[in-house]
């Protein structure tokens, strides 16, 4: 197929960026979206134009490195990561607009690459269970009801790609935050720090400059791991409980 690509080019975070238009021919529908960009980059290198910088690593949908806005949708039209999107989702002659995640908490580093360090800093504020190596009891010491274990797992599948932020009209990271709160809150091991965790992580989230949640639901539609919206409710509930406990 033949494609017209409009791609955001920006040399670094300080410089201004713009959409530039490229033509790409002979794209097979079995090609993945990122392999299509690889092809474009080979073509650009051939004509002495610097290749488009974009993030990707595992290319099997699990590391969360890749992620761009494709025609205004985070990770494109399918419920998956950008790397698992294949060109069979597009048609010959299509024009595809490709932009980086846009959020002030995710500054653009170059072209389609953004800095998601804010997510790490949110985790640093309590997205863990404090247990030093070697101090753990036997794994079977505490049974975890399957229902809780399953819910913890379902939300622990978050890959931290940032699509929720990119898709949210408010630029909020509540889905990411809620997923971690719910994961650890479902497990008996996570109870001791449950109140402080939610309070500190929410404070860091707000401090990073993410927007507030208005429960619109675009995040969960964009989430490649289909994290449900109820993690945000859980987040709010935990926050309310923590406030009741005087935190």
């Amino acid at each position, binding site marked *: 197929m033949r494609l017209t690509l409009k791609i955001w080019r920006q040399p670094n975070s300080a410089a201004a960026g713009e959409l530039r238009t490229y033509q790409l021919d002979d794209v097979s529908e079995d090609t993945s979206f990122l392999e299509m960009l690889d092809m474009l980059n080979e073509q650009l290198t051939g004509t002495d134009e610097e290749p488009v910088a974009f993030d990707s690593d595992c290319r099997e949908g699990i590391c969360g490195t890749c992620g761009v806005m494709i025609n205004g949708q985070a990770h494109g039209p399918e419920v998956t990561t950008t790397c698992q999107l294949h060109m069979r989702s597009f048609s010959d002659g299509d024009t595809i607009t490709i*932009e980086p995640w846009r*959020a002030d908490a995710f500054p653009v580093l170059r072209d389609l690459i953004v800095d998601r360090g804010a997510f790490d800093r949110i985790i640093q504020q309590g997205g863990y269970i404090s247990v030093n190596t070697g101090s753990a009891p036997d794994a079977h010491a505490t049974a975890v009801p399957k229902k809780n274990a399953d819910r913890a797992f379902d939300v622990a599948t978050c890959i931290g790609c940032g699509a929720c932020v990119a898709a949210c009209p408010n630029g909020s990271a509540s889905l990411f935050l809620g997923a971690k709160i719910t994961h650890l809150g479902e497990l008996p091991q996570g109870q001791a720090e449950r109140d402080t965790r939610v309070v500190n992580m929410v404070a860091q989230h707000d401090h990073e400059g993410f927007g507030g949640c208005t429960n619109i639901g675009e995040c969960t539609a964009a989430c490649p791991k289909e994290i449900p919206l109820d993690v945000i409710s859980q987040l709010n509930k935990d926050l309310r409980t923590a406030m009741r406990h005087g935190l």
Partner: protein
Amino acid sequence: MAVTGLIFVGYVLAHMYGNLKVFAGQDSFDEYAHHLREFGEPILPYEGFLWIARVVLILAVIGHAYSAFKLWHRAAVARKEKYSARRVAKSTLSSRTMRWGGVTLLAFIVFHILHLTTRTITPGSNSDSPYERLVAGFQPERWWLVLIYLVALVALGMHLRHGVWSACQTLGFTNTAASRRRANLAGISLAVIVAVGFALVPISVLFGIVD
């Protein structure tokens, strides 16, 4: 946002109940309006209850608007550079129109108070009987007034549709898929009940069912 919103939901339902008295005739409606002023007497002074309600509502409006503008501002600074292409995936129109819808409702409330509470604008009649003012206002020759009210009710319905669901979510009541469905259903039901319930009055007057 959620708490103040729920105060409005309660108020709006009570208000609608009162409005529907119009179908019981002029006496019943005017009696109801008058009784509101005497509610709680003699423990409360005349109009005491009404003023308590008004103060609560004003505070709620302030709180609601403050939270709304704060969220609006946060969203604006959270993404200063906008997308040049944007496609909506799943969100409802109601959820995306909360802000301008809210502004519309605020403007309407001001108009509504000027119209039927302070009687600053008096389309049709400035009678002391609320019933007469109402019936005179919504006569066919003042179709524009009916239209203003109907537009406001659509805005209110949409605001409630997302607002009720969103409040449940914000208060942490929706931790399962089933409870999320229920909250959504509650939002839709309340939106329809309130919008239709209020709309019955001007429409009935317009078509001469109430006169």
